[in-house]
């Protein structure tokens, strides 16, 4: 069976996004669907699934047209979709999220036990065994939520499964499990898959065919054996010289900018490290290892329980991000949609909002000229597409929105000392990724200390001067000059097991302490 897109066109206002796209996914095979940020991938998939309505063209599954159907009807035709942005419900339990609208019923009533059983099976299949299906989704991290969404899609037993950047927020372990699940479903149940990703090394592991979308048109489609990663990256962003990237260590200043001593939060710690100006610290760990919590604590967004944090030799206790910012510590949060983007703000407003009334734009009245100028500079630096200062934040493609989020702290004279980045390249395409890296290196060379938390080991290796590895909230290792990503992954995995034992040991220790008292 085929899922066919025929000559699909879609424009937003005057901007044509899809200019006549033909796409064909086949049962029993995985189609990797690639393209630069803003190429129109999500738009196309949205049109298939009923989230958007195309202008012209047709979408066929077998003989039936999917044009103009509601998402529910598309599902009924056997097409399941994992959206780029989370479509999960935090005040419902994991099981409820999985079965929402497709409940297993006895008569009119929900069959809770049957649902729970199937939910557990699905999660285990996805390589996750530590999620309690009856717990509320809000208790889970970003990555774990993604897993739940995937479980839901599998529950639907679709004929075609569409995944829009499913691994963007997953760590290597879950990504592997997902690949396995996809492989199984393709071979055993003969489903067809459309797979969007910006991690090019995934392609050869999962896909059978590759299609490249560029400028709203299909560039080419080829079997995966015939193309190399270089071919792919050339096709996606042709003008980038990716090999030239070099982090380069800053050797000028060896004073300690940021020193962390035995820092503990409710989940993370104790943590110890120090950073000099112009140094980049990578934080690597598996899903739920506490990277986000650590960064939020450093930025004053969540409370510190024990330990000290000092900046330029002075001990600091931040009660809010504002107080951290006044010392030049800024955070780029990982969950773009929920935590950093102002969806209805224009690009330029989104960029300058943290600085309004502050150092850079300190005037009593706003200076719109200056704001626009700043945007143009950043847009050029990061190649934000489209470079339209007045386009609303929510209208940018995921990757380009992310560039704006990072761009906030690239504005000159913002007095930045430490920049904390949580998954900075989530959803950013291969070309733009290097532009971002480049920008970070420039920043680093200007003497800013940077901490990058990421689930992409390659990224951590390329960027960092040293790497902190987290496992279940514990600091497992602090490595200087990392070069092997396999090493990081291995450490992180081992940490996961070791600390489990550690936990047990800790409990024993506490017990003993209790007895002694």
């Amino acid at each position, binding site marked *: 069976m085929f899922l066919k897109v025929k000559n699909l066109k879609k424009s937003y206002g005057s901007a044509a996004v899809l200019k006549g796209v033909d796409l064909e996914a086949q049962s029993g095979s995985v189609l990797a669907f690639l393209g630069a940020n803003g190429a129109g991938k999500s738009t196309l998939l949205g049109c298939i699934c009923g989230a958007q309505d195309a202008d012209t063209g047709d979408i066929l599954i077998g003989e039936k047209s999917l044009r103009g159907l509601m*998402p529910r009807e598309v599902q009924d035709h056997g097409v399941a979709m994992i959206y780029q942005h989370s*479509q999960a419900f935090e005040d419902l339990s994991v099981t409820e999220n999985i079965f*929402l609208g497709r409940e297993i019923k006895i008569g009119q009533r929900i069959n809770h036990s049957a649902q729970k059983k199937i939910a557990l099976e699905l999660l285990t299949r996805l390589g996750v065994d530590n999620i309690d299906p009856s717990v509320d989704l809000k208790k889970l991290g970003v990555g774990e939520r993604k897993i739940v969404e995937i479980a839901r899609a599998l529950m639907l037993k679709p004929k075609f499964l569409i995944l829009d950047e499913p691994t963007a927020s997953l760590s290597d372990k879950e990504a592997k499990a997902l690949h396995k699940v996809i492989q199984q479903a393709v071979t055993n149940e003969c489903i067809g898959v459309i797979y969007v990703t910006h991690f090019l090394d995934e392609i050869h592991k999962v896909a059978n065919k590759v299609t490249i979308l560029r400028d709203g048109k299909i560039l080419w489609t080829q079997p995966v054996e015939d193309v190399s990663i270089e071919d792919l990256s050339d096709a996606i962003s042709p003008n980038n010289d990716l090999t030239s990237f070099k982090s380069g260590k800053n050797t000028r200043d060896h004073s300690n900018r940021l020193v962390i001593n035995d820092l503990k939060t409710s989940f993370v710690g104790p943590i110890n490290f120090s950073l000099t100006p112009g140094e980049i610290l990578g934080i690597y760990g598996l899903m739920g290892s506490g990277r986000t919590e650590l960064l*939020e604590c450093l930025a004053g*967004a969540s409370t510190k329980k024990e330990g000290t944090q000092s900046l330029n030799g002075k001990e600091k206790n931040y009660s809010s991000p504002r107080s951290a910012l006044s010392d030049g510590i800024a955070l780029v949060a990982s969950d773009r949609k*929920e935590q950093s983007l102002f969806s209805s703000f224009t690009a330029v407003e989104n960029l300058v909002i943290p600085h309004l009334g502050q150092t850079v734009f300190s005037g009593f009245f706003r200076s719109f000229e200056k704001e626009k100028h700043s945007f143009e500079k950043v847009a050029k630096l990061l190649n934000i597409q489209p470079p339209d200062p007045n386009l609303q934040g929510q209208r940018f493609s995921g990757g380009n929105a992310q560039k704006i989020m990072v761009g906030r702290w690239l504005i000159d004279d913002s007095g930045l000392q430490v920049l904390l980045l949580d998954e900075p390249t989530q959803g950013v395409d291969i070309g733009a990724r290097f532009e971002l890296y480049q920008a970070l290196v420039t920043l680093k060379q200007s003497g800013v200390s940077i901490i990058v938390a990421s689930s992409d080991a390659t990224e951590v290796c390329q960027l960092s001067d040293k790497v902190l590895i987290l496992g279940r909230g514990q600091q497992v290792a602090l490595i200087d000059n990392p070069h092997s990503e396999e090493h990081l992954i291995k450490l992180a995995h081992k940490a996961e097991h070791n600390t489990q034992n550690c936990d047990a040991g800790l409990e024993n220790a506490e017990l003993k302490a209790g007895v002694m008292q």
Partner: protein
Amino acid sequence: MISDTSEQKKMFNLGLKQTSNWSDIAITAALPVAIALLALFFFINVPVFMTINNWIAISVQVSTIMTIAIPFALLLMAGKIDLSVGSNLALCGVVAGLGFSDLGIFSAIILTLIVGTGVGVLNGLLVSRFDMSPIIITLGTLTLIRGVAQWLAPHPIFGFPEDFLIIGYERILGLPILTWIMLAVIAMGAAVMAFLPIGAQIIALGVNQRAAFLIGLRVKGIGILLYAATGFFVAIAALMSVSRINSAPAGTLGVGIELSVLTAVLLGGVPFNGGKGSLFRVVLGVWLLGMLSNGLILMNVPTELSLMITGLVLIVAACLDRLRTK
């Protein structure tokens, strides 16, 4: 406002961390404890407050509001609201009153239920069709329907058939029929939320309507259904109310009841933007307000003082309840 509550928590619970298990329990029980303390206070001042008969009287007094509050709470959990309940109550009362003399009891009751549900469906269609803020639409119907009710009843309507009035004063197994109806409505609501698929779907709608649409829920259908249900139960409440006062004053019946219901439901911990909530706490919220009004009358507290006390109790109870969710 913001829907992202889990994140907010992190944001604001600076210094409000629950440290021991004891305070945990105290805080979890905030609303029940508030009710108990208030009851104790009234009991000390007016011992008659604690009699079974008085509690039965309170149950009858809150029965109308409770009957509306249950579907209203579901609506709020789904991120919608119906401010027109007070006017709809008046309209249903008037329709019932006019119907009794012309149609007989049974047909009049059916007609009333149809009219109430119809107003609900109207609200639902307007809100869903134009994807308007439910507030502005139902503020509109609040005014519109009140006008219709007054237009239908240029003359006072009172004096209904005794067979109907029975509902208002008869007791079964020692409890007033009105109390039984209220209990049935509560049980029904609780069962829907606990056992039926639509329970979780309502919450999903409140958390993120767009996501609910994308994953294939019948967003519009559920919305209209909830509005219709609210209208239906408002009609029931109207019948209860009218059978109790034996009169259907189009101009004053149900005036301001939307605010009482909203207050009770919010006090019961349903956030205004929906996405969560427990009917158990809503019931407590309604009860707290009913008890407060009863106790203040028993103590013969002057108007201005009882306004101040009510306001304070609202604020304190809400704050206590907030601590719970921290």
